[in-house]
Structure formats: C-alpha cells, structure tokens
C-alpha cells in the first residue's frame, strides 16, 4: 500500500489515475509538445540526409574509380558536389513551380514521417504562423502529394495520397472521365468508381477534377499502372502510381490560396 499523508491508496488506483492524468495532460498540451519536438526532429532529419549522402558516397566513389582512375583522388569532392547539385535541382524545380503557379504557396520541408504502418503521413516544418490551414492541398514539384490534416504553430501534419482515409475527386486526362482517387491499407493509390464501359488504359494520366474542396483542378496525380474490374462487376477501378514518390518526398508546397 502506498501511504501519502496518512491516506492509503492501492497501487492499482495510483497507476490508473496517473494514466488518466498523463493522458489528459498530453491531450491538452498536444500542439505545444509537437512544436517542441520539431527541433530535435529537424536535427535528426538532417543527420539522416548526411547518412544517406555517406551511403551514396560509397556507390558513386566505386563507379568513379572504375571509370576514371585518374579522378579517384577527387571522388570525395565529386560526391559532395553531386549531393549539392541534386538538392539545387530539387529546389530550382520547386522555385520554378512556385513562380509559374497561380496559387499562393508556402514551401516546407518534411521533418518526420508517420511511425505507424497503417497510416501514411508526414510532418512539415511550417504551420499556422506561416498561414497554413487544415484542408490545404499539398503539392511537390512532380504533382499532388496530399492535404493538411492538423496544424500547429510551427508544424503541420500532411495526410499523403496513399493513406486509407485520403480521397480526392479526379479525372482521366485523355477521356475526361471522373472518379475518386483514394489510398489503400497497403499504402497504394487507386482510382475508383469508374463506369464499366470506361476505356481507361495503362499509362493514362490522372489529374484533380477540382470538385473536392481546396483541391484546384488540373494538378497532376499519377499514371495508371493496372486496370481491374470491380469484384461486384458494376464498374472498374485502377491502380495509380503517383508522380510524387510518397516514400521519399522531402520538400513540398502548401497551397494556401489563389492569386486571382
């Protein structure tokens, strides 16, 4: 028995009330805690990029030695240069997209990914202070990535297209047929509710239709890689490979409004 100030409490009751206390406290302080842990996340995320650069170093150095023996001494510089060039290209793409775009956007960096295997999301380093709101569409240089689901002061959570709860109305660019893009529990992306006589073929490009709120029309989503009949035989659905690699997405643009 635990004895506090002459009163006796059973250990089970103490554990129970501690759990309830921690739970309520974490619920109240959720946004503050997430903002607080964004700093170590940024450091850890950068550190991971450094590790990846080191892994890439081995491969690129080997290739360099094999092809140009005389440049072996400069392999280290070449790798550092290559990493910087890739980053530069990525950022240039994003910048040009931002310039060309008719939307008001906020550029953000991915600092953490969903720890669960049953949901697909990322945390970015921009939040309410930068004008991001829940429901904003998120794009990368290649196309649509997902939408904002939770916003905190300095961070926000994005539900990626592959999440089982994600859905957005879309059209097939060639045939203009409408359907619904949604995620699956395995993290894949599919287009559902196509009619039985739909002439969708492998390779067709899928774009947003503009019917879903906050998603502007004409954003590229992906390419059809497999067409299947519905199990009930009432229609068709197809598997889509998103243009954005959802597993490795690093920089994104959040659409916060329109210029016109």
């Amino acid at each position, binding site marked *: 028995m635990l004895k506090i100030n002459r009163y006796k409490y059973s250990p089970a009751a103490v554990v129970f009330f501690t759990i309830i206390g921690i739970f309520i406290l974490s619920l109240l302080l959720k946004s503050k805690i997430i903002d607080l842990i964004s700093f170590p996340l940024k450091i850890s995320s950068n550190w991971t990029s450094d590790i990846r650069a080191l892994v890439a170093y081995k491969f690129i150095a080997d290739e360099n030695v094999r092809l140009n023996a005389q440049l072996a001494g400069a392999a280290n510089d070449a790798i550092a240069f290559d990493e910087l060039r890739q980053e530069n290209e990525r950022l240039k793409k994003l910048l040009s997209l931002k310039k060309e775009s008719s939307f008001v956007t906020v550029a953000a960096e991915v600092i953490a990914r969903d720890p*669960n*295997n049953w949901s697909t999301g990322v*945390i970015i380093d921009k939040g309410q202070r930068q004008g991001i709101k829940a429901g904003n569409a998120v794009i990368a240089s290649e196309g649509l990535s997902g939408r904002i689901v939770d916003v905190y002061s300095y961070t926000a959570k994005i539900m990626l297209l592959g999440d089982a709860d994600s859905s957005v109305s879309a059209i097939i660019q060639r045939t203009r047929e409408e359907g619904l893009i949604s995620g699956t529990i395995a993290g894949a992306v599919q287009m559902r509710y196509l009619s039985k006589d739909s002439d969708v073929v492998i390779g067709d490009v899928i774009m947003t239709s503009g019917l879903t709120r906050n998603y502007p029309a004409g954003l590229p989503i992906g390419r059809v890689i497999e067409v299947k009949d519905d199990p009930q035989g009432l229609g068709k659905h197809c598997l889509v490979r998103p243009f954005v690699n959802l597993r490795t997405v690093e920089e994104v643009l959040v659409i916060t409004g329109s210029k016109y």
Partner: protein
Amino acid sequence: MAFPQYQKHAIFILLAALVQTTVLPQLWFLRIKPDLLLILAMLIAMNAKSLAGGIIPALCAGLLKDFFGLHFFGFNGLLMALSASCVYGIFHFLNKESKGIKFFIIIFASLMNYIALTIISRKPYIFLCFPEAAINCLFLPFLESVYNFFTTPLSREGRAIGYAHK
C-alpha cells in the same frame, strides 16, 4: 554517473521515437517498417519490477507515437499501456528464461494493436499485422541486447569479465 532506471527508459523511448520517425523511414527498404516503440515498451514491461514501471513507459511511448501519427489520438497510448499490463501479468507467471516467450509477446502485442484498429476503423488492417509482427521479431534480439547492455549492470560487467578472461 549512474542514471535511475526511469531516466534511461525515457532516453531510450525518445531515441526510439526519433529513429522511428526520421531515420528508419528513409533507410528502411520495405513498406512495413519495424515498430521500435512497441518492441521497447514490451521489453520494459517484461523487465518491470512493478505494474506502474511497466505501464507508464508504455503509455508514454504510445502517446509519443500518437503525436506523430495521423489518426485516433490516444489509440496507441492506451493500447500499448493495456498490452504492457497484460505482458507484465503474463510474464510473471511464465518462465522468463525461455527465449521463445519474448517473440510470442511481441506477436501478441502487434496482434492486439491491429485487432483493435480493425474494429475501430472497420477496415481490414489485420492483414498488416503479420508482416509487422515478423519484422518486429527480427528486430527484437537486436533491441533487447542494446536495452540489456544499457539497463542491466550485470550484462556490462559480464562482458567486462569476459574480455578480462580473454
């Protein structure tokens, strides 16, 4: 400098959360990744000397997972606390020396997680349980040896004696 056990657990859980959300998704090549926080919470529950010592770290690990996750805030926290209490109870009746029991406990915790998820979300997430449990079992010996090395003084001393004999 000797750290109290709960501080070591807190550091372990924070490090596992950082690795789980930043390093692992970029370096892991499969769609299903190991659940380091779940493995760690179960290891702590297996070695806990009191019920609170098993449940509270599991609750904190679960809540940390919920902070980073998209859906059902509190789901992981409460479920991992429940799993830890079951594991604490089970582990005190069974033979602790048996290696197989730890794998069974990891599979049990993963299964419990996905059964609850399937019921709550009404989606067949249960299919993800088996690959995740298998990958968790692969990671268990590694995490267990790291955990034992830093939390059990005997483990470190045993190694030191072993090196001295060599």
